[in-house]
């Protein structure tokens, strides 16, 4: 087709061809440029907002972590782990029970590891036999259960002498322990707040641990030569 013919056709139908060409151009721009760009813009707005939210959260977390005294935290963690250890702490427990019984005016005549465990949480059993005044036996029970080392008395057996003032008691105690979980928080995990009540609890636990357990003197009992 010759150029002149095309010009003639255009001149004849220009009232239709021009608006159609304009409409098509606009449509192409809208469909292939504006809509994809706007979709991408909306999607990216969400991504940007999530980055900002996460960043703000991490900044707050950093601020909170920086405000904590690392030495104080280490002390608290040590106290908490002594109270509720991650593994069986036989030696600590022997020393502690001896300290508690002697402080309460009782003699611990035997100690045996074993027996049934406290059912709810991981624990190991200790059977102790103590002898002492009946009047302060309740205090002994209370001291065991409020000591800084987490222990539960789950069986009590008492037998009294003829006088009734001195008793002999078998106590089955469960010493709780649990391994520390392997996952101690990721970068994204929120920092758990330590409440005022928990702070007070930590202070009480810390107070109970003021006397170092290893400093408690062990007084040997029984025969010096068991074969005599």
């Amino acid at each position, binding site marked *: 087709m010759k150029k002149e013919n095309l010009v003639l056709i255009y001149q004849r139908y220009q009232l239709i061809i021009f608006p159609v060409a304009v409409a098509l151009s606009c449509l192409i721009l809208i469909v292939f440029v504006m809509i994809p760009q706007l979709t991408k813009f909306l999607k990216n707005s969400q991504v940007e907002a999530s980055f900002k939210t996460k960043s703000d959260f991490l900044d707050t977390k950093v601020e909170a972590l920086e405000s904590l005294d690392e030495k104080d935290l280490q002390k608290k963690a040590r106290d908490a782990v002594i109270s509720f250890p991650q593994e069986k702490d036989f030696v600590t427990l022997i020393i502690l029970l001896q300290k508690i019984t002697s402080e309460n005016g009782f003699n611990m005549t035997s100690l045996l590891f074993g027996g049934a465990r406290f059912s709810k949480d991981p624990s190991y059993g200790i059977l102790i036999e103590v002898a002492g005044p009946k009047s302060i036996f309740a205090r002994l029970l209370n001291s065991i259960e409020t000591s800084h080392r987490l222990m539960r008395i789950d069986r*009590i057996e008492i037998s009294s002498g003829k006088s009734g003032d001195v008793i002999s008691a078998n106590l089955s105690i469960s010493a709780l322990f649990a391994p520390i979980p392997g996952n101690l928080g990721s970068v994204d995990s929120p920092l758990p707040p330590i409440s005022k009540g928990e702070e007070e609890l930590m202070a009480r636990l810390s107070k109970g641990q003021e006397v170092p357990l290893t400093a408690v003197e062990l007084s040997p009992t029984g025969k010096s030569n068991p074969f005599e």
Partner: protein
Amino acid sequence: MRKISINLLPIEYAREEIKKAKFYKIQIFGIASVVIVTFLASLTVALGVLQSKNIKEAEARLGESEEKVLQLKDRQALVFVIKNRLATINQYFGIPSKQVAIYSMLNQLLPSGLNISSYTIDRSGEAVVIGVVSDGESVDNLIVGLTSKSEASDKISRVSIENLNRGRDGLYRISLKIQTK
């Protein structure tokens, strides 16, 4: 006086002029539309570019914050250890076990006239008390005390006499099983 208008132009010429004028209007409108749409399209592209820049900045800031948190991960681990331990400690610390609570309760409820020779509180919270009382009235007092007092009725579900005998010495030997709620 009314004006008389006479169009001397040929009718084809007049039609052509009208068509031209109409096309001119369409041209103006079409060009304006294309310009506006092009402008809007450019605007969206520019916004996209600007947003990409902002995203990169936000990503960089996030990376910095993550790095800071990683530097403080030891402190975070300590906080998690403390919380993990406290969760269990909180459940038990300062709260007497069932057995100790029963012992304390029975200590208040059992009369002083009962001379206890043996006392057992097992894992289920069941208590067995073996003791000696001097007379029948004390036996009555003992049972009434364990079953009628308000603090007893709240905590004791059942009291059963397992054994009761009177020796030649006139003393009553009694064995009680106390079930708690």
